[in-house]
C-alpha cells in the first residue's frame, strides 16, 4: 500500500479494509498455532473460545461480574478524573505546587502496578483494591494532561479578561474550558484505558465475589483455558465499548463549549 507524504493512505484501499485484513491475519495465526500445539489447555482455538463465550455471556454469574467490574471501572475513572483534574488545575496555576508534588507523582509513576495491588490488599477490603490501584495509576496521567491544558491558556486572553473585568464564570466558560477541552479529552481517553487494565489485574489478585478478574482466575485454576480467554474477551469488549462510547460523545459534543 502506497502512502502519501502526509502519511495518509492512498485512495483505493480503505483503512477499514486494512483493519479487517489485520484482524483476519491475527485469527489465522491463532488458529494455526492452536492446531500446531494441539492442546486446549495450552491454547484453545478461536472457535472453541467463541463457543465458550457464547455459553458464558448470557449466564447470571457473568452478567453480575460484568456489572460489578463496569461499576468499579467507572468509579475509578470518575475519581481519577475529579482528583487528577483538581490537582492538575492547581499544578497548571502554580509552579510551586507542581514542584512540591513532583516527587509524589514520580513515585506513583515508577511503582509497579502489582506492588500497588499487593499493598492495597493489605490495606483495603477486596472490593476496593482494584479501584484504589486504578485510581492511583490513572491519577498522574490526568494530572499531567490537565496541567498541560491550563498552561496552554493564552496569557493575552487572560489579560484581556482581567482588563474587561470578565466574571469568573465567563472566564471559565470562554477561555479556560475551550483551552482545556482537548487536554481533558486526552486525559479521559488515557485514564479510561488504564483503568480497565488495572481493575481486572486488581480483581485477579483480590478476588472480590463478583468480578471479571475473579471469573478469569477461577477458570485458570480449573484449567479451563477457553474460559480464561472468554473472560479476557469480555474485558477487551468492555474497554472497546467504553472507548467507542467516548468517541461518539466526542464527535457529538464539540468540546470547545460556546457561551452563546
Amino acid at each position, binding site marked *: 500500500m502506497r502512502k502519501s507524504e502526509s502519511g495518509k493512505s492512498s485512495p483505493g484501499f480503505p483503512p477499514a479494509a486494512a483493519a479487517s485484513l489485520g484482524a483476519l491475519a491475527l485469527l489465522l495465526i491463532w488458529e494455526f498455532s492452536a492446531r500446531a500445539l494441539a492442546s486446549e489447555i495450552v491454547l484453545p482455538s478461536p472457535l472453541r473460545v467463541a463457543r465458550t463465550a457464547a455459553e458464558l455471556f448470557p449466564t447470571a454469574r457473568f452478567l453480575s461480574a460484568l456489572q460489578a467490574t463496569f461499576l468499579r471501572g467507572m468509579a475509578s475513572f470518575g475519581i481519577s478524573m475529579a482528583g487528577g483534574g483538581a490537582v492538575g488545575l492547581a499544578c497548571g496555576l502554580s509552579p510551586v505546587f507542581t514542584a512540591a508534588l513532583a516527587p509524589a507523582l514520580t513515585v506513583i509513576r515508577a511503582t509497579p502496578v502489582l506492588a500497588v495491588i499487593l499493598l492495597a490488599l493489605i490495606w483495603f477490603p477486596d472490593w476496593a483494591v482494584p479501584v484504589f490501584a486504578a485510581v492511583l495509576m490513572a491519577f498522574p496521567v490526568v494530572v499531567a494532561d490537565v496541567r498541560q491544558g491550563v498552561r496552554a491558556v493564552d496569557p493575552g*486572553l487572560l489579560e484581556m479578561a*482581567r482588563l*474587561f473585568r*470578565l466574571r469568573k464564570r465567563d472566564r471559565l466558560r470562554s477561555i479556560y474550558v475551550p483551552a482545556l477541552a482537548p487536554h481533558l479529552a486526552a486525559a479521559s481517553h488515557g485514564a479510561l484505558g488504564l483503568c480497565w487494565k488495572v481493575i481486572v489485574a486488581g480483581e485477579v489478585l483480590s478476588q472480590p465475589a463478583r468480578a471479571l478478574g475473579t471469573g478469569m482466575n477461577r477458570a485458570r485454576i480449573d484449567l479451563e483455558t477457553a474460559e480464561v480467554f472468554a473472560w479476557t474477551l469480555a474485558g477487551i469488549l468492555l474497554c472497546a465499548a467504553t472507548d467507542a462510547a467516548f468517541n461518539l460523545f466526542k464527535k457529538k459534543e464539540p468540546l470547545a463549549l*460556546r457561551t452563546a
Partner: protein
Amino acid sequence: MPYELRDIRKSFGDLQVFAGFSLDFPPGKVTAVLGPSGCGKTTLLNILAGLIAPDAGELRGLGDARFSYVFQEPRLVPTLSALENVELVLRASFGTGERKERALRLLAAVGLAEARELRPRQLSGGMRQRVSLARAFAYPADILLLDEPFQSVDLRTRIGLMDSFLDLQAADPRTVVFVTHEVREALYLGDIVVVLSDKPARVLDRKELLLPRERRSYGSADLSDVEAALYRLILG
C-alpha cells in the same frame, strides 16, 4: 476633571522607566503618545489600567475609572464568533437583549454586520482588529487605551481602521490614550500629541492639534511643519 499621573516612578530591576513622570489626559480627547520603541509606552498604559503598580507617584481621577483596551494583536477568543466576542465583555454589565443590541450596533458601525457570526480564524487581520475596536467601544469604559493597534496591517487597511476609530469616537467620545511610534498615526488620530524621550521617559513636547481632521489625511501638506518638528524631536 482630567485624569492625571503625577511624579510617577517605576523601575524594573536596574532599568528605570519613569523617574518623576507627569502627564494629564483631558476627558473626551485623544491623547497620542509618541516615543521610540521600548521607551515605556506600554508600561504607561499598564500603569493607567492598574495592571502594573508604580513604585511611587500619584494617579488622580483613575481610582474608579473603567478601562477598555485595544491591544497590538486583537486578542479575540478563537472559539467565539465576532458577535459573541463583543458580547463577552458586556456580560457583567448588561442583560441579554441590551447586550446583543449594543454588540450588533458596534459591529455594524465598524462594517462587520455581515461577518458577525464568523469566528476569528475566518476573518482577515484587519477585520479582527475591527472586532477589537467594536469590543472596546461597546464596553462601558471611561478611558480607552490603544496600544499600537494598527501596526500589523497594510497602509490602506490601517487608514480604514483609523477612520473606523474616528467614527466611533465621534459618535461616543471617550478619553483615549493612544500610544504609537508612528508620527503620521499620532497626527491623524490625536487631539493632543505628546512626545516622550527614551528611558527614563519624560515629556519632550506636548502639542494640541487644532487642524480639522479632514485636512490631516495621509499625504496632506497641512501638517508637514508639525510632522518635521516631531521627527526632529524624536530623532534628536
